[in-house]
């Protein structure tokens, strides 16, 4: 009985930790987007939007390396994209935390299930599906 209770406590702690991570991830993403957004408006605010026709974005901010290069030059659009990437990362980080908690619980079935979910997401990242 006692072991069961400590296990429940761990579950609860991990959940609390995940909640914190999500909160900070979302806050960080929002702050980065605000900074990039103000910088972007300062540079291009008086221009005209061009969204009626889809052109596919320039290579600069559609890849991780492109975003990284843009960040080094202080480009506003790449700073915003960094905020987007942080936002996309929050649910993925949540999966990783769940994987760790299942490993701590030695729940083999759910270690495998979580690993499959993570593998599918990694496949969509690096599987060359962009074309």
């Amino acid at each position, binding site marked *: 009985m006692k072991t069961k209770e400590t296990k429940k406590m761990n579950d609860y702690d991990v959940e609390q930790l995940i909640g914190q991570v999500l909160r900070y991830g979302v806050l960080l993403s929002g702050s980065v*987007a605000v900074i990039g*957004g103000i910088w972007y408006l300062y540079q291009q605010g*008086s*221009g005209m*939007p061009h*969204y009626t026709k889809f052109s596919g974005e320039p290579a600069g901010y559609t890849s991780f390396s492109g975003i990284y290069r843009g960040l080094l030059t202080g480009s506003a659009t790449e700073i915003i994209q960094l905020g987007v990437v942080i*936002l996309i990362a929050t649910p993925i980080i949540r999966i990783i935390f769940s994987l760790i908690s299942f490993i701590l619980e030695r729940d083999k079935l759910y270690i495998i299930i979580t690993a499959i979910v993570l593998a599918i*997401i990694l496949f969509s990242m690096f*599987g060359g599906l962009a074309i």
Partner: protein
Amino acid sequence: MTILTFTIILLLGAYLAGLAGSLTGLGGGVVIIPLLTLFFHVDIRYAIGAALVASIATSSGSASAYVKEGITNIRLGMFLEIATTAGAVLGAILAIYTPVNLVAILFGVMLIFSAAMTLRKKHEGALLEGSKLSYQLKLNGSYPSKEGVIDYKLKNVGAGFSIMTVAGMLSGLLGIGSGALKVLAMDTAMKVPFRVSTTTSNFMVGVTAAASAVVYLQRGYIDPGIAFPVIIGVLAGAFTGSKLLMKIDVKKLKLIFSIAITLIALNMIYNGFHHKF
């Protein structure tokens, strides 16, 4: 219209989208797509990118609040995420071969379905006896309530899993969270109590959207000029919504919102058939 005015109006629109999305449980994406396409005449592909960003923002933003209450069934969510993420990746591949008009029509149909789902009767009771698979997969759980801890069991695991694959595919194709389909799979098929299915669905929406968002980011669907007002607006709106949710009765609001959404959906379908995208 300059970029500055575009940004300010979009920021306000995204705020309302996040607010309405969190109050009704539909998520931010469903309002963002019509706002961008019908009002701003933005290409639907940019709108899909923006909706994915909005879905993740609402999911992660409100998940931190829900997790505290300890009612999300992480095992159930994780198991079903195999279906939704695989479906989402498939949907993102299908998107290349799907004409934009068809995407708009599908989106309209999905909106009407979502509107109907917000008004349905909720499944409150907990099953006492689950199916064999629910025990083998350790999907049964419990949640705290005013009357104490309530244990619940599930059934129709296979049917739930299949609906989730479709939900994931539509979410990958349309950029929305497909929260309504996710709740349908858990409530109606698997008999998960309403409080558990709503929060678990919210947990899954973020993960499903992330799976296809990575693909769409690389394809250039996510434009920084649209993304930043959407992120900021939806996050602020969802935050206000979660505070308001405790104080107001959302019944009437849901009805008004469902009617509004149905009208928007008919507009999207009409435009889709007349090749206005």
